């Protein structure tokens, strides 16, 4: 079955949505993310939507659901990379993604997660230890 891959990066989950989402795929992703958080004890979820050409209320609801479910499981979610035309359309549609943290790109999204959780990014510490 078709699935959106979830990468594990230290304490975080990294998801890049690159396909045109349909219902089953979205529901599968919600299941998979919550499963991974509980299995790996992840603190943060970063969802990159820079490849999405549209975000309609269905996908918006899926993002809000993932953020809410993750929060209940103790993980923060950041959605990054929204295209400007998508942002304009989404707000006009009446959806400003309340409850979902956003950042311009993957880098600032990661900083946000590290900042929120007070976890130091590995590789940038002075102790030279690999996480």
């Amino acid at each position: 079955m078709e699935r959106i891959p979830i990468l594990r990066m230290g304490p975080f989950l990294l998801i890049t949505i690159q396909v045109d989402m349909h219902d089953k795929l979205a529901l599968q992703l919600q299941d998979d993310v919550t499963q991974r958080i509980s299995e790996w004890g992840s603190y943060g979820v970063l969802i990159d939507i820079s490849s999405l050409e549209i975000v309609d209320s269905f996908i918006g609801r899926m993002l809000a659901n993932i953020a809410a479910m993750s929060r209940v499981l103790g993980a923060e979610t950041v959605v990054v990379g929204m295209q400007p035309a998508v942002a304009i359309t989404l707000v006009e549609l009446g959806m400003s993604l309340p409850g979902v943290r956003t950042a311009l790109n993957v880098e600032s999204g990661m900083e946000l997660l590290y900042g929120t959780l007070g976890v130091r990014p590995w590789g940038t510490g002075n102790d030279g230890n690999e996480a």
Partner: protein
Amino acid sequence: MARWALGLGEQAMTVMKREMFPLQTSSDIVLARQKVRQWALELRFSLVDQTKLVTAASELARNTLDYGHGGEMTMEIVNGTAKSGLKLTFTDRGPGIPDIEAALKDGFTTGAGMGLGLGGSKRLVNEFSIESEAGKGTKITVVRWK
């Protein structure tokens, strides 16, 4: 039959091109979006306008599927008096919308959604009309001018 319209009076519109697509499964919604994008590109809509139109199409196609139990979308490239545009018509033979005014309000839903589909897509297009009859079905027409 109940009707609600914003624009879409009886002004002359010449149809330049027309195609119909079934909306029976959720992958039909994906296909419909791609087709609308393709035609919007053909008409050289700006990126923001393309995005608005495709998003509106996605919302309305989903409504056709979820509330109308499936139906079809008709795409037309139309010429108005001084401009061209893309006209989309979503037709189903579902239960109909008992109270159109209420259904257009943000947050109104009888299903599991957020209730943004109708009211939201109305804001993404230039002209919008709903015709609905209880037990017979619903027809939603939208136009975005270039």
